[in-house]
C-alpha cells in the first residue's frame, strides 16, 4: 500500500532521523510513504504571526497539490505542519471568508483550488489504527524492556480541538503504543506543555527555562528518556538541556518502534542525536 507523505522542512534537516525512522516503520507495516511532489513549507509560526493570507495560503497550497495528485489522505509527521495544514483544511471546510479568499487566490496562481477532499493525518494517528497497532506485538524483536519513558505530546498535536485525534488534556496514544513495544511508560503531568519551540532562536533564555522544567519533571517521574511525535519538541529538548546535570535522550516514537522491530538502520538514526542515546540503549541491550 502507498500513502501520500508530507515530511516538512524539519524532516529534511534538523529531524532527518525522524524521516528515516518513520519511513522504515511504515515499510515494516507494508506501507510505502510517497513524498508529495513540490510541497512547500507550511509557514510555521513566522507565517501565522505576521500575515493572515500567508497563514492560510502556504499550508493550503500543499492540499491543492495532494488533491491534484488524487490523494485521499496526506500523512504529516511534523506536529507544526500537521496543525497548520489540518487547520487550513478545517477553515476551508467551514468556508470562512479568509479561507475562501485564499482558495480563490490559489486558483489563479496554481490553476486549481482545494475542494476539501483530503484527510490530513499524523503518523501516530495512522499507526494507532487497528490494522497497524494490532500487528505491533507480533512484530516485536527487541521489546523495549526496562526503558523508562516520559511520553511528550507538546502543544500542536492535540490542540486546538479540530486537530486533535486524542484527548486534548490527557492524550494516551503514544503511551499505549510505547507500552505495546514493551517500554515502562511513566505518568507525568507535563505531557501537553509547550516546549517554546518558536522562541528557540530569538529568546533562548526562555526556552532554557522551559526545557529545565520539562526535563526535571520527566526525571522526577522516573523517566530515563522522553519520547515525542514532533520534530520541534525533539530539537528543542535535545539541544537545550544546558542547565540539566544529567541530560536525557529525546526519541521520536517511530525511532523507538523501529528499535523494537529490530530495524538494522536504528544505530544510524541514534548518531544524529545531540544527547547521545547509545549508552542508555546499550545498557538495556537495545542496540
Amino acid at each position, binding site marked *: 500500500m502507498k500513502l501520500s507523505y508530507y515530511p516538512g522542512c524539519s524532516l529534511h534537516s534538523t529531524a*532527518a532521523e525522524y524521516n528515516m525512522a518513520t519511513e522504515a516503520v511504515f515499510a515494516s507495516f507494508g506501507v510505502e510513504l510517497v513524498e508529495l511532489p513540490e510541497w*512547500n513549507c507550511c*509557514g510555521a509560526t*513566522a507565517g501565522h504571526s505576521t500575515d493572515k493570507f500567508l497563514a492560510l495560503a502556504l499550508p493550503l497550497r500543499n492540499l491543492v497539490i495532494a488533491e491534484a495528485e488524487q490523494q485521499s489522505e496526506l500523512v504529516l509527521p511534523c506536529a507544526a505542519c500537521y496543525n497548520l495544514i489540518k487547520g487550513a483544511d478545517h477553515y476551508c471546510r467551514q468556508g470562512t471568508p479568509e479561507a475562501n479568499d485564499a482558495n480563490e487566490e490559489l486558483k489563479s496562481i*496554481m490553476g486549481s483550488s482545494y475542494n476539501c477532499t483530503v484527510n490530513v493525518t499524523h503518523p501516530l494517528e495512522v499507526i494507532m489504527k487497528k490494522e497497524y497497532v494490532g500487528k505491533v506485538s507480533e512484530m516485536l524483536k527487541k521489546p523495549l524492556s526496562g526503558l523508562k519513558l516520559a511520553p511528550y505530546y507538546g502543544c500542536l498535536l492535540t490542540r486546538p480541538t479540530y486537530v486533535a485525534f486524542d484527548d486534548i488534556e490527557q492524550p494516551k496514544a503514544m503511551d499505549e503504543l510505547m507500552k505495546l513495544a514493551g517500554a515502562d511508560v511513566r505518568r507525568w503531568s507535563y505531557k501537553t*506543555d509547550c516546549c517554546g519551540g518558536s*522562541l528557540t532562536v530569538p529568546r533562548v533564555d526562555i526556552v532554557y527555562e*522551559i526545557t529545565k522544567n520539562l526535563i526535571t519533571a520527566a526525571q522526577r517521574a522516573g523517566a530515563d528518556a522522553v519520547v515525542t511525535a514532533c520534530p520541534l519538541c525533539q530539537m528543542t529538548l535535545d539541544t537545550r538541556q544546558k542547565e540539566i546535570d544529567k541530560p536525557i535522550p529525546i526519541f521520536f516514537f517511530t525511532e523507538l518502534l523501529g528499535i523494537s522491530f529490530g530495524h538494522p538502520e536504528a544505530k544510524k538514526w541514534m548518531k544524529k542525536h545531540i544527547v547521545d542515546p547509545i549508552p542508555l540503549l546499550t545498557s538495556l541491550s537495545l542496540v
Partner: protein
Amino acid sequence: MPTVNKLATENNAFCQEIMDKSHQPITSCYHCMKCAGGCPINFAMEHNNYEILRIIQLGEKDKVFKSNTPWLCVGCKTCAVRCPNGIDTSKVMDTIKMETIAENKIPASHYNIKLFYELFLDCMKGFPIIGGEGRSYELGLMGLYKLCTGTYLAEMELGKEMTKRGKMPFLPHNALKRRKGEIKKIFQVAKEKRAR
C-alpha cells in the same frame, strides 16, 4: 456574540477592530484567568493573556502595542482549549503582532523576534543563484539572523554539532520544478493585500 463588558466597548473602536480582525469575542472575557494559568510562557510576560484582553476592552492601544506578551506568545493553544467563552487568545496575539507591524510600532525589545519571523519567510522566497524557493533553509536563516543581530559567536558549538550530523544542509532544497514561481506569487499577493 455575547457581550459581558458592554460598557467597556461602547466607545471603543480599537476593541472592535481587534475583534473583527481576530474573529475572537474579546468582550466575553470575564477574567477567570484559566488562560494565564495554563500559559507556558507567562513567567516571562509583562501582562498575562487575560490582562491583554482587559487592556483591549479598555481601548488602551499603546499599552497593548508596547507589551512583550503578544511577541512571546508561541501559539500553543492552551488558552484556546481552556477558555470557557471560546476565545483563542493566541489569535488575538497574532492580530496584535500584525497590527504592530502594519503601524511600524514594534518596540526595540521585541525586534529580534519579528526579525526572526521575517528572515524565516524571506528564506522561503529563495535566493539568487542558490535558489531554495518554497522550503525553509536553516543554515541560511541562522547566518542571516546572526549577521543582522551581531551575535556571530553565540551557539557556534551547537551549529557545528548540527552540521556534523547532517542536520543543517549547506545548500537550500530546490524542490520546485514544474510549479516554480508559485511561492513567489503567493508572497506577492500577500504583499498586495497588506498594502490595501
